[in-house]
């Protein structure tokens, strides 16, 4: 299945890109995708505790099962206001 990953705020700077696509085994858990993402972008390791993750428009945890076409977003703690 195909899942796209978007990077926001300084995740975009760390990754050097805004979006990329991952080809994954069907039903993979979000946590496993994040491991792959950190493999491609080792700089994400250092901000691991400051990483928020959404699938579509909702926050999700590591156990969440991904589906084909999902859009995953990685971003730092939010700072509105």
């Amino acid at each position, binding site marked *: 299945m195909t899942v796209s990953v978007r990077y926001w705020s300084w995740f975009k700077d760390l990754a050097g890109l805004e979006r990329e696509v991952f080809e994954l085994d069907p039903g993979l858990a979000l946590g496993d995708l994040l491991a792959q993402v950190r493999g491609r972008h080792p700089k994400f390791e250092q901000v691991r505790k400051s990483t928020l993750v959404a699938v*579509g428009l909702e926050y999700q945890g590591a156990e969440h099962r991904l589906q084909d076409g999902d859009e995953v*977003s990685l*971003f730092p703690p*939010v*700072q509105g206001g």
Partner: protein
Amino acid sequence: MRRELQLVREPLDEDSLRRGWIPSAGSGAVLQFLGIVRGREGDGAIEALEYEAFEPMAEHQFQKLFDGVEMRWPTVEAVRLVHRLGVVSVGEASLWVEVVSPHRAEAFAACQWLIDAMKQVVPIWKRALPAPER
């Protein structure tokens, strides 16, 4: 509960926002909060903040927070919230929130809860644009 949400790139026009309020005969309390960009951020003087948002998710999360206000304070009649995106200069408002309710207590509680919750879940980020050195 009436609800209104705007993510805007232009300066807020407070006067016209204010005139957008239609009181009911039960409205006893109107609380309005303005968040203003301050001249210092962390260590240094700044000229502006630049706000970036993941807009569809921000809108969705704001709507869930409005649901949360409605559930926690069923008497709240209206919530309006405007957040600026893009470059917001020092002294300008980045956030405007209005809560209307029959009584004062729930307006204060709902407004504070909404802003606190926004700062936890709504995907908006800011970046300081430093002031030029003198």
